[in-house]
């Protein structure tokens, strides 16, 4: 039993290590502005968000009852979240030279404003915003969403 636990711990440590290594190259954007309670949640941890923190693929950004946050993605997409809002970055690839382009995010609750960036111009079909009741597709645009 003890040896089993040791192996398990070693494996867990290995995986955790591998994940934190890849996380550094998975940066997809930054937190630009923060007001009130805002959290940046990754698979490993939940942090109080602060300006200029890096957002990684797979992260979730959440705001509290008085929180709001502004985000800038690497393809120039800008996003804002109002109070009690939550968004998850499911996939983000921005490599125009190799035609690797995609941006899928899940809007879980709250209010949002978006201005889409270069991925939506270069490959509009690869951009999706999933809400609980519908999926949004865009061609270079600014829009608002409220999930009530």
């Amino acid at each position, binding site marked *: 039993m003890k040896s089993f636990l040791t192996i398990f711990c070693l494996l867990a440590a290995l995986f955790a290590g591998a994940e934190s290594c890849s996380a550094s190259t998975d940066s997809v954007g930054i937190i630009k502005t923060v*007001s009130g309670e805002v959290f940046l949640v990754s698979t490993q941890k939940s942090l109080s968000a602060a300006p200029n923190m890096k957002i990684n693929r797979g992260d979730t950004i959440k705001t509290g009852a008085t929180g709001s946050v502004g985000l800038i993605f690497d393809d120039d997409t*800008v996003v*804002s979240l109002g109070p009690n809002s939550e968004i998850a970055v499911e996939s983000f690839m921005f490599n125009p030279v190799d035609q690797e382009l995609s941006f899928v995010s899940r809007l879980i609750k709250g209010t949002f404003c978006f*201005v889409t960036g270069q991925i939506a111009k270069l490959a509009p079909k690869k951009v999706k915003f999933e809400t609980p009741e519908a*999926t*949004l597709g865009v061609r*270079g645009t*600014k*829009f608002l969403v*409220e999930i009530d």
Partner: protein
Amino acid sequence: MSSLYLKPWFACLLLLLLYGCTQKTTVVLLSEPDGHVGNLTVGNIGGEVEMSRPAEATVISGRESSPSKPEILSEQQINAQFSVVLATLPIQPEHFLLYFEKGSTILTAESEAMLPMILQSITDRNSENISVIGHSDTAGNRDYNLRLSKERALAVSQVLIEKGTPRTHITSTSHGEENLLIKTEDNVQEEKNRRVEVVVK
């Protein structure tokens, strides 16, 4: 069994369940900062609507019910519902391309004249996140060009620092001849490739 339906607690529970399940999503199309209006589709199992006029909005009240026919909202309606996110939205990043005299870290006169615009962009965005990315053309060997593009990026960074931008706000990288703006053969002088891109976030 039928008496169950009459029990007030059951009716309450049912209402609560129904209320809890019924989410409502509103989607509003706006014109972009440059006045351009894009195109937005909203779809689910129930159907799909397309919007292309500014302030057009649709409401979705369930995964299986089609999004409502788009209607134009007034500015007051939009502000009442979305004032916080509209005020919080960051300004989009701005990109600048600066060009150099051949084989040097000296900016062309036109590019030199763009420096005040870059500084203004940094001020407008309150930016602490400025990328300076150096490139070269393919004249000369790879190592030479990597070094030259690095020196160009550093020269531009240095100017920004001298004009008051904190060093820690600037990230400088260099690509040598690996990332050409204009595709050329090796050993070709191309002024559009002798460049530094500055991105202000």
